């Protein structure tokens, strides 16, 4: 049965750092198959908003719900449905690329982890690096590995913070195509991006944050 309500519901969210209010009464509904792009200048609060949505930062006021459940990063049901690629990924120095993805797939209870990991590794073009330790990867390869984490696991909402960062032109094109396909298959996406190619190809709605937003 198709889900009726929004996948993500953000209501009257407020976040301040000391006396400086970064986000004021922000509300957003994202349904399955919808992709919302957050744009805006540096410091406009895109990353802070995403961190509040995923529960990494505490909100001062307001509520965030995922599939009708109050957002809590400690709730396994939430973690099962929420895939995130934000800029805080760290790696086990002694585990290879393929082992990292294998571990994540197993932790999510993916039925055939090896096949899934191999396919996704091929898609993100990291097969030659599959045996490498993370310390030897370039920043672009690390970004591809981070993106791969979102695609090997079950998910109903995908949150991305500047996913295009450090990707080459072909990489951005692949990402745009992939996210578009994800959206068309019914995934809800919220992403912050400065890349017009990505925003144009993927987003069904664009929200400009910050003082010059004009909305």
């Amino acid at each position: 049965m198709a889900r009726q309500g929004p996948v993500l519901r953000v209501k009257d969210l407020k976040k301040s750092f000391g006396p400086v209010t970064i986000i004021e009464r922000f509300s957003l509904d994202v349904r399955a198959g919808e992709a919302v792009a957050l744009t805006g200048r540096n410091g406009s609060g895109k990353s802070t908003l995403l961190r509040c949505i995923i529960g990494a930062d505490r909100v001062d006021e307001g509520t965030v719900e995922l599939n009708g459940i109050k957002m809590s990063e400690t709730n396994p049901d939430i973690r099962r449905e929420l895939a995130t690629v934000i800029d805080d990924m760290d790696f086990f120095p002694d585990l290879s690329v393929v082992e990292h993805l294998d571990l994540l797939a197993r932790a999510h209870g993916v039925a055939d982890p090896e096949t899934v990991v191999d396919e996704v590794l091929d898609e993100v073009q990291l097969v030659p690096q599959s045996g490498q330790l993370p310390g030897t990867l370039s920043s672009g390869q690390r970004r591809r590995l981070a993106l791969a984490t979102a695609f090997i696991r079950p998910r109903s909402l995908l949150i991305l913070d500047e996913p295009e960062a450090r990707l080459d032109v072909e990489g951005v094109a692949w990402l745009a195509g992939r996210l578009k396909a994800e959206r068309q298959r019914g995934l809800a996406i919220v992403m912050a991006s400065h890349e017009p190619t990505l925003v144009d190809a993927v987003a069904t709605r664009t929200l400009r944050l910050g003082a010059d937003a004009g909305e």
Partner: protein
Amino acid sequence: MSKRARKNAKAAGTPPPAPAVTEPVPVELPTEFYFPPDDPPIPVDERDLLAVMRDWRHGRATRTIMQVISDGYIAVLSLLVLGAMLAGALLRTQSLVAVCTTSSCLTARTLLPWVVLFAVFALTLSAAHLFGPVLASAAEGSWLMDAPIRRRRLLTKRLVLPLVLAFAVGLLLGVLVALLSGNDTASIAVWGGATGLGALGLMAFAAAAQAREARGAVRIARTSAAALTAVAGAAVVSVAAGWVHLSLAPDALLPVVAGVGVAGVALAVAGTMYATTHLGEIRRARLVSGGSLVSGMQGAAFALDLGLVRDILVDRESAERGHVKPVKGRGTGIAALVWRDVERLYRWPRALPGLALSLLVPYALDALGASVVNPLLSGLALIVVLVPFLGSLRVLTRTKGLARTLPFPTTTIRTAAMVVPAILAVVWGLAATPAFWGIGAAGQERTLADAVLVSMATALAGLMGAVRWVTAKPVDFNTPMLATGAGAMPPTLVFNLFRGLDMVVLICAPVLLGWGAGWSLGLVAVVFVFLRGTFDMDELKAQQEQAMREQQALKSEKDKIRVSRPRR
């Protein structure tokens, strides 16, 4: 194109080549992607995940455990050296305590384990507040905590380590001080047990508070324990000095001590039960934050770079605070730098109570009749409490970039960064003067004028020690090593261990030898000239190289002119 290339091109009469322009080629979006089958997830056993990781890691280690220990020999050796010093100091203290026969001295001795008890509690809570106490590595946060697993099953073992450590350290320190205080075996057991179990209970309490996100409760408990430490310390000094008359039999308070131990056990049981059942509710950010802190400090600690360890803690504290109210600067030039330090002190006054508490040291030593070593030991204590006030100097030393942005010589900037701490040291010196004059049971030791000079010399020795500690360069492991019985060792390592302490010993030596404080103050002036960077070898070397480069450039310029000059 470089300036030289442009010049050459111009000289050749050819226009510089235009930068290559490429037309943007529209990239076609791919359409074929892999999507995993929508199978329902299979149940996950967290221990299986850990077993898989263990399997992957099996046989991958590049070093044996002995090699790891051998790599850490620097830390081990230093611990041995410091341990030997500590043991020596304890033995000397025990011999001093053994001759303690007066009623006030005996009572003070009875109260001493209370100081340690509360200090251990405050330290336990500080460590728990700083690191978690339950923590996870950043990689675990990214790859395991992100999955819908039961975190409790992964974290249960992580709770055991801080509990065991708290108990062991508490027990050790409790037994040690009870032993030094001349207690009998039963009393030593009670003191050791109470200190260890109390620390265990507080660690469990901190873990429960972490699960409830009640960091404020730990902070309040920590402040209370620190305040009790100060009160107990003041009581010991007051009683020993004869300012307060109190007569306590050594065993008088033992039931209360045993009660503390029992309370510790109750707290440990309740806290551990609560924490264990709620471990899954600790936010990932909290878990990972402690893990990142530990991994950052581990490297610095292994290299014995205590300055870096402190930098990491200060950075972390600033990051947690996140935001401050901006305050307008005042003055221009160097005065603006000094004023900013005043503002910083107003904004972060937390170090001031430590400075005030350090005044207990000279008074305690005076009360115990240890007037000869008073300047030395008080100066050493002052180093510890003055370091937090030298934040500007530390930043200026750590990276030269900030100093380069300022239009003053490095020596002037460094001097400016010492102004506020120097004022604080002078105030400390004035406040400590009565202790050097002699107001304890031993009576007056020197004239008031001499006492002022000795007190000032002590305060400035502490300041110079702190400046030396803050400005010392980290150990350079790239320099040729010295062959020692314990293996190769960078020459600066040994000096780094004692950095700061050497300044206090040097400056206080004339007072200790009875030559008078004037000599000490003269040495302060000499040390200051060095520490402000007047003879910074790196800077002098850079200046020399710059001068050589300029000379070389001048020479080649002359050569060029000579060659191009037309002959008549």
